[in-house]
């Protein structure tokens, strides 16, 4: 949380995560290079630099698929949630691989030009009006700039100072980068590759990601409708307190689409915004740990009765007034300013 910035707040899990990821990247690139050599058509020249260039590009592109799939997968099943905890390292690795790919491509294809390599990159192929002959390198450049901005602002300092809304919007540009990369790879393949295998793989990956996001989106809409709560005298009926598992929450969707996490703990009920200040993680899918609401994504914590992170941390989230009537939990749909203390409602007959 926002106190005493470090380069990385390492935990044993994060270290294991990074080791597994780097081994997987190494294995993928090795298989790609060995496979590339073994399947290269006889009679066609293949330079090791070209193969390394392709290996770096395809590894980065594949890793980007994993990065984009983790979000929807973890919403479909909690088994995937651990993959979210250090996704930013996967994103930075994606950028570094893509950067290495770009540097090699720039030197190999434009380094021998008499003009500036960057000018050569943009001007050597002037067919911007053609689909088949479009200079796909420029699309890769656009994607690389976006991946750079995302990697460069992945540190908590940026999330805290750009604000969660702006930070999230900036990082949603990953979908623009992905679309540019699909076009970059497809056009590159169309202009340089005879085998349709790569094109099928790229198309399959895109279909997989689109389908995954659509399925998750539809499921979320259906769930939101089911969670839509009825109003009674200005208070929102959340349901029976007994139906909220101890130390957990139910998520209520208000009319404007705002989500509220209603937690039950120690015989009490408190309601806070469902949106974590860190990366907008779903607090209501987390739990009460050490008496604190704990975000399932990166472990940011807040006190349930005032929405404030424990000292020395300074994050605050909005709270909601709450009451329990005949065992039924009600919340006031009007949010209190972030960090406002609210007396928790006591669940009658519950063991403290």
């Amino acid at each position, binding site marked *: 949380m*926002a106190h005493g910035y470090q380069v990385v707040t390492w935990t044993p899990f994060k270290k294991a995560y990074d080791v597994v990821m780097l081994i997987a990247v190494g294995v993928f690139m090795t298989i790609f290079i060995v496979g590339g050599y073994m399947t290269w058509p006889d009679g066609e020249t293949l330079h090791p630099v070209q193969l390394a260039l392709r290996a770096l590009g395809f590894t980065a592109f594949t890793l980007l698929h994993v990065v984009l799939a983790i979000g929807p997968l973890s919403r479909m099943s909690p088994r995937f949630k651990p993959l979210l905890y250090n996704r930013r390292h996967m994103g930075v690795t994606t950028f570094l691989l893509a950067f290495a790919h770009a540097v090699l491509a720039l030197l190999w294809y434009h380094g021998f030009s008499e003009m500036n390599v960057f000018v050569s990159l943009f*001007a050597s192929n*002037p067919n911007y009006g053609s689909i088949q002959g479009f200079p796909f390198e420029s699309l890769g450049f656009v994607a690389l700039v976006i991946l750079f901005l995302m990697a*460069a*602002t992945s*540190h908590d*300092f940026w999330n*805290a*100072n750009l604000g969660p809304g702006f930070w999230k919007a900036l990082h949603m540009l990953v979908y623009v980068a992905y679309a540019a990369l699909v076009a970059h790879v497809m056009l590159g393949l169309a202009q340089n590759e005879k085998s349709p295998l790569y094109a099928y793989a790229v198309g399959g990956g895109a279909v997989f990601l689109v389908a995954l996001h659509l399925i998750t989106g539809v499921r979320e809409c259906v769930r939101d409708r089911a969670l839509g709560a009825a109003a009674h005298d200005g208070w929102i009926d959340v349901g029976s307190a007994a139906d909220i598992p101890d130390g957990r929450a139910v998520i209520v969707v208000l009319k404007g689409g705002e989500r509220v996490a209603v937690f039950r703990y120690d015989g009490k009920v408190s309601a806070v915004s469902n949106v974590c200040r860190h990366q907008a993680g779903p607090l209501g899918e987390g739990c009460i740990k050490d008496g604190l609401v704990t975000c399932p994504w990166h472990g940011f914590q807040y006190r349930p009765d005032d929405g404030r992170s424990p000292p020395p941390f300074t994050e605050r989230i909005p709270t909601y007034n709450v009451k329990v009537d005949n065992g039924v939990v009600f919340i006031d749909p009007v949010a209190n300013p972030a960090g406002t203390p609210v007396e928790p409602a006591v669940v009658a007959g519950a063991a403290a």
Partner: protein
Amino acid sequence: MTIQLAEMLVAAIAVYAALGTVFALVFVTVGVRRIDPDARGMPLRARAVVFPGAVGLWPLLLVFMIRGERKT
């Protein structure tokens, strides 16, 4: 894209990056404290991690620094 247009684009990117590099050096040494009290005593390595982002987003950070306040 014509060579002339490409040269202008590359020159614009180079100027942006050069200004960003100069700004980022100032930002990671004194600017971070101005917009974020939590950044006081930030280790040198953490400032180095912040540096590339400051190069990329320097116009925005310049506004933050002039205002002297945190975005959030």
